[in-house]
Protein backbone atom coordinates (compact mmCIF):
# COMPACT_ATOMS: atom_id res chain seq x y z
CA UNK A 1 0.00 0.00 0.00
CA UNK A 2 1.19 3.49 -0.83
CA UNK A 3 0.60 6.31 1.62
CA UNK A 4 0.82 9.89 0.41
CA UNK A 5 1.18 12.27 3.32
CA UNK A 6 0.35 15.96 3.59
CA UNK A 7 0.55 18.07 6.71
CA UNK A 8 -0.99 21.48 7.17
CA UNK A 9 -0.84 22.91 10.68
CA UNK A 10 -2.53 20.31 12.88
CA UNK A 11 -4.15 18.42 10.02
CA UNK A 12 -2.69 15.29 8.51
CA UNK A 13 -4.11 14.17 5.17
CA UNK A 14 -3.27 10.67 4.00
CA UNK A 15 -4.18 9.39 0.56
CA UNK A 16 -4.04 5.62 0.52
CA UNK A 17 -3.54 3.39 -2.48
CA UNK A 18 -3.84 -0.39 -2.51
CA UNK A 19 -5.04 -2.97 -0.02
CA UNK A 20 -5.62 -2.32 3.66
CA UNK A 21 -5.18 -5.62 5.49
CA UNK A 22 -3.15 -7.25 8.27
CA UNK A 23 0.12 -6.52 6.46
CA UNK A 24 -0.47 -2.92 5.44
CA UNK A 25 -2.65 -1.60 8.27
CA UNK A 26 0.35 -1.59 10.60
CA UNK A 27 2.15 0.98 8.44
CA UNK A 28 -0.98 3.13 8.42
CA UNK A 29 -1.12 2.95 12.22
CA UNK A 30 2.52 4.02 12.47
CA UNK A 31 2.12 6.80 9.89
CA UNK A 32 -0.71 8.35 11.90
CA UNK A 33 0.59 7.74 15.43
CA UNK A 34 4.02 9.17 14.60
CA UNK A 35 2.47 12.45 13.48
CA UNK A 36 0.12 12.62 16.45
CA UNK A 37 3.10 12.20 18.79
CA UNK A 38 5.65 14.34 16.91
CA UNK A 39 3.64 17.21 15.53
CA UNK A 40 0.56 17.26 17.69
CA UNK A 41 -1.73 16.40 14.80
CA UNK A 42 -5.37 16.66 15.84
CA UNK A 43 -7.27 16.14 12.59
CA UNK A 44 -6.62 13.14 10.39
CA UNK A 45 -8.18 12.99 6.94
CA UNK A 46 -8.07 9.66 5.14
CA UNK A 47 -8.68 9.68 1.41
CA UNK A 48 -9.64 6.13 0.40
CA UNK A 49 -10.28 6.80 -3.29
CA UNK A 50 -7.62 4.34 -4.43
CA UNK A 51 -8.12 1.68 -1.78
CA UNK A 52 -9.03 -1.63 -3.39
CA UNK A 53 -9.59 -3.81 -0.33
CA UNK A 54 -10.30 -3.48 3.37
CA UNK A 55 -10.92 -6.03 6.12
CA UNK A 56 -11.25 -5.88 9.90
CA UNK A 57 -7.51 -5.27 10.36
CA UNK A 58 -7.81 -2.04 8.37
CA UNK A 59 -11.06 -1.03 10.03
CA UNK A 60 -9.53 -1.73 13.44
CA UNK A 61 -6.64 0.64 12.76
CA UNK A 62 -9.03 3.40 11.68
CA UNK A 63 -11.19 2.89 14.77
CA UNK A 64 -8.06 2.76 16.93
CA UNK A 65 -6.89 6.17 15.61
CA UNK A 66 -10.35 7.60 16.32
CA UNK A 67 -10.05 6.34 19.89
CA UNK A 68 -6.57 7.86 20.23
CA UNK A 69 -7.63 11.25 18.89
CA UNK A 70 -10.85 11.53 20.86
CA UNK A 71 -9.34 12.26 24.31
CA UNK A 72 -6.92 14.73 22.62
CA UNK A 73 -9.86 16.69 21.24
CA UNK A 74 -9.04 15.48 17.76
CA UNK A 75 -11.03 13.84 15.00
CA UNK A 76 -10.78 11.63 11.97
CA UNK A 77 -12.52 12.19 8.66
CA UNK A 78 -12.88 9.67 5.84
CA UNK A 79 -13.21 10.85 2.25
CA UNK A 80 -13.91 9.40 -1.18
CA UNK A 81 -14.68 5.82 -0.25
CA UNK A 82 -15.30 3.49 -3.22
CA UNK A 83 -18.76 1.86 -2.99
CA UNK A 84 -17.55 -1.72 -2.40
CA UNK A 85 -15.27 -0.53 0.40
CA UNK A 86 -18.08 1.51 1.91
CA UNK A 87 -20.27 -1.63 2.05
CA UNK A 88 -17.74 -3.37 4.27
CA UNK A 89 -17.41 -0.27 6.45
CA UNK A 90 -21.16 0.03 6.77
CA UNK A 91 -21.52 -3.55 7.96
CA UNK A 92 -18.88 -2.83 10.61
CA UNK A 93 -20.87 0.14 11.93
CA UNK A 94 -17.91 2.48 11.41
CA UNK A 95 -19.95 5.23 9.67
CA UNK A 96 -22.02 5.55 12.86
CA UNK A 97 -18.90 6.54 14.77
CA UNK A 98 -16.63 8.27 12.28
CA UNK A 99 -17.45 11.12 9.86
CA UNK A 100 -17.57 10.29 6.19
CA UNK A 101 -17.49 12.94 3.53
CA UNK A 102 -18.49 12.68 -0.07
CA UNK A 103 -17.01 15.01 -2.64
CA UNK A 104 -19.19 16.09 -5.52
CA UNK A 105 -16.11 16.53 -7.67
CA UNK A 106 -15.58 12.79 -7.60
CA UNK A 107 -17.89 12.04 -10.52
CA UNK A 108 -20.12 9.67 -8.67
CA UNK A 109 -17.48 7.14 -7.63
CA UNK A 110 -18.55 7.60 -4.05
CA UNK A 111 -22.17 7.99 -5.02
CA UNK A 112 -23.30 5.39 -2.51
CA UNK A 113 -21.78 7.27 0.36
CA UNK A 114 -24.42 9.13 2.31
Amino acid at each position, binding site marked *: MLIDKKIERQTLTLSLKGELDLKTSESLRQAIDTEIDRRGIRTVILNLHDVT*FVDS*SGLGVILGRYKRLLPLGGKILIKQVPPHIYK*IMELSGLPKIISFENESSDEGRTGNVQ
Partner: protein
Amino acid sequence: MKKNKLALTFSSIAENVSIARMLIASIAAQLDLSLNDIEELKVVVSEAVSNAIIHGYQNDPNKLVILEIEYDTEALQISVRDQGCGIPDVEQAMQPAYSTDPERMGLGFVFMQSFMDELNVDSVVNQGTTITMVKDLNKNHASLH
Protein backbone atom coordinates in the same frame (compact mmCIF):
# COMPACT_ATOMS: atom_id res chain seq x y z
CA MET B 1 -18.57 -29.67 -13.51
CA LYS B 2 -16.34 -32.08 -11.66
CA LYS B 3 -15.43 -31.33 -8.10
CA ASN B 4 -12.22 -29.38 -7.85
CA LYS B 5 -9.97 -29.29 -4.79
CA LEU B 6 -7.06 -27.04 -3.96
CA ALA B 7 -4.86 -26.74 -0.91
CA LEU B 8 -2.32 -24.08 -0.10
CA THR B 9 0.04 -24.33 2.85
CA PHE B 10 1.92 -21.19 3.81
CA SER B 11 3.92 -19.56 6.59
CA SER B 12 1.91 -17.65 9.19
CA ILE B 13 3.03 -14.22 8.06
CA ALA B 14 0.94 -11.20 7.13
CA GLU B 15 2.35 -11.08 3.58
CA ASN B 16 0.55 -14.33 2.81
CA VAL B 17 -2.93 -12.99 3.55
CA SER B 18 -3.07 -11.24 0.18
CA ILE B 19 -1.82 -14.39 -1.59
CA ALA B 20 -4.67 -16.37 0.00
CA ARG B 21 -7.07 -13.68 -1.21
CA MET B 22 -5.71 -13.88 -4.76
CA LEU B 23 -6.34 -17.62 -4.83
CA ILE B 24 -9.98 -17.33 -3.80
CA ALA B 25 -10.52 -14.40 -6.18
CA SER B 26 -9.22 -16.46 -9.14
CA ILE B 27 -11.46 -19.39 -8.26
CA ALA B 28 -14.48 -17.13 -7.78
CA ALA B 29 -13.82 -15.51 -11.15
CA GLN B 30 -13.68 -18.95 -12.81
CA LEU B 31 -17.01 -19.78 -11.19
CA ASP B 32 -18.40 -16.64 -12.81
CA LEU B 33 -19.47 -15.13 -9.50
CA SER B 34 -20.46 -11.49 -9.31
CA LEU B 35 -17.90 -8.83 -8.39
CA ASN B 36 -19.77 -8.36 -5.15
CA ASP B 37 -19.46 -12.06 -4.30
CA ILE B 38 -15.77 -12.00 -5.20
CA GLU B 39 -15.20 -9.03 -2.86
CA GLU B 40 -17.02 -10.82 -0.05
CA LEU B 41 -15.05 -14.04 -0.55
CA LYS B 42 -11.81 -12.06 -0.41
CA VAL B 43 -12.92 -10.54 2.90
CA VAL B 44 -13.84 -13.88 4.50
CA VAL B 45 -10.57 -15.53 3.46
CA SER B 46 -8.66 -12.52 4.70
CA GLU B 47 -10.41 -12.67 8.07
CA ALA B 48 -9.98 -16.41 8.57
CA VAL B 49 -6.30 -16.38 7.59
CA SER B 50 -5.60 -13.26 9.70
CA ASN B 51 -7.28 -14.97 12.68
CA ALA B 52 -5.03 -18.02 12.25
CA ILE B 53 -1.91 -15.83 12.19
CA ILE B 54 -2.81 -13.42 14.98
CA HIS B 55 -4.83 -15.58 17.33
CA GLY B 56 -4.03 -19.18 16.44
CA TYR B 57 -0.30 -18.65 16.21
CA GLN B 58 0.03 -15.42 18.23
CA ASN B 59 2.04 -13.92 15.35
CA ASP B 60 4.67 -16.67 15.41
CA PRO B 61 5.98 -16.56 11.80
CA ASN B 62 7.40 -20.09 11.90
CA LYS B 63 4.06 -21.88 11.80
CA LEU B 64 1.95 -23.04 8.89
CA VAL B 65 -1.58 -22.13 7.85
CA ILE B 66 -3.52 -24.44 5.54
CA LEU B 67 -6.14 -23.07 3.17
CA GLU B 68 -8.31 -25.66 1.46
CA ILE B 69 -10.86 -24.83 -1.21
CA GLU B 70 -13.30 -27.30 -2.69
CA TYR B 71 -16.07 -26.59 -5.14
CA ASP B 72 -18.51 -27.89 -7.72
CA THR B 73 -21.56 -26.28 -9.30
CA GLU B 74 -23.52 -26.52 -6.05
CA ALA B 75 -21.24 -25.06 -3.44
CA LEU B 76 -17.89 -23.54 -2.64
CA GLN B 77 -16.26 -24.65 0.59
CA ILE B 78 -13.32 -22.84 2.16
CA SER B 79 -11.47 -24.10 5.18
CA VAL B 80 -8.62 -22.43 7.03
CA ARG B 81 -6.69 -24.51 9.51
CA ASP B 82 -4.03 -23.75 12.08
CA GLN B 83 -2.37 -25.93 14.66
CA GLY B 84 -2.12 -23.12 17.16
CA CYS B 85 -3.44 -22.30 20.60
CA GLY B 86 -7.11 -22.91 19.88
CA ILE B 87 -10.10 -20.91 21.11
CA PRO B 88 -11.22 -21.71 24.69
CA ASP B 89 -14.75 -20.35 24.18
CA VAL B 90 -15.83 -20.38 20.54
CA GLU B 91 -19.27 -18.95 21.28
CA GLN B 92 -17.75 -15.95 23.03
CA ALA B 93 -15.18 -15.43 20.27
CA MET B 94 -17.97 -15.29 17.70
CA GLN B 95 -19.84 -12.49 19.45
CA PRO B 96 -19.84 -9.24 17.46
CA ALA B 97 -17.22 -6.81 18.75
CA TYR B 98 -15.54 -9.48 20.88
CA SER B 99 -11.81 -9.06 20.55
CA THR B 100 -8.84 -9.90 22.70
CA ASP B 101 -7.03 -6.94 21.10
CA PRO B 102 -8.44 -3.43 21.63
CA GLU B 103 -7.08 -2.32 18.24
CA ARG B 104 -9.16 -4.86 16.41
CA MET B 105 -12.88 -4.67 16.05
CA GLY B 106 -13.86 -8.27 16.62
CA LEU B 107 -15.51 -8.21 13.24
CA GLY B 108 -13.90 -11.21 11.59
CA PHE B 109 -16.67 -13.64 12.45
CA VAL B 110 -19.35 -11.03 11.70
CA PHE B 111 -18.11 -10.80 8.10
CA MET B 112 -17.76 -14.58 7.80
CA GLN B 113 -21.32 -15.09 9.07
CA SER B 114 -22.77 -12.35 6.89
CA PHE B 115 -21.11 -13.33 3.64
CA MET B 116 -21.23 -17.13 3.81
CA ASP B 117 -24.16 -19.54 4.03
CA GLU B 118 -22.53 -21.85 6.56
CA LEU B 119 -19.83 -21.23 9.11
CA ASN B 120 -18.36 -23.84 11.38
CA VAL B 121 -15.57 -23.30 13.89
CA ASP B 122 -13.87 -26.38 15.20
CA SER B 123 -11.31 -25.61 17.88
CA VAL B 124 -9.37 -27.55 20.48
CA VAL B 125 -7.22 -25.66 22.97
CA ASN B 126 -3.50 -26.21 22.27
CA GLN B 127 -4.29 -28.23 19.16
CA GLY B 128 -5.65 -25.69 16.76
CA THR B 129 -8.64 -24.25 14.96
CA THR B 130 -10.34 -25.06 11.69
CA ILE B 131 -12.79 -22.57 10.23
CA THR B 132 -15.00 -24.07 7.54
CA MET B 133 -17.27 -21.88 5.44
CA VAL B 134 -19.65 -22.77 2.66
CA LYS B 135 -21.15 -20.58 -0.02
CA ASP B 136 -24.18 -21.97 -1.76
CA LEU B 137 -23.75 -21.40 -5.49
CA ASN B 138 -27.27 -22.38 -6.48
CA LYS B 139 -28.68 -19.07 -5.31
CA ASN B 140 -27.18 -17.62 -8.48
CA HIS B 141 -25.73 -14.28 -7.57
CA ALA B 142 -28.53 -13.67 -5.09
CA SER B 143 -26.22 -12.18 -2.55
CA LEU B 144 -26.88 -8.50 -3.06
CA HIS B 145 -26.40 -7.27 0.47
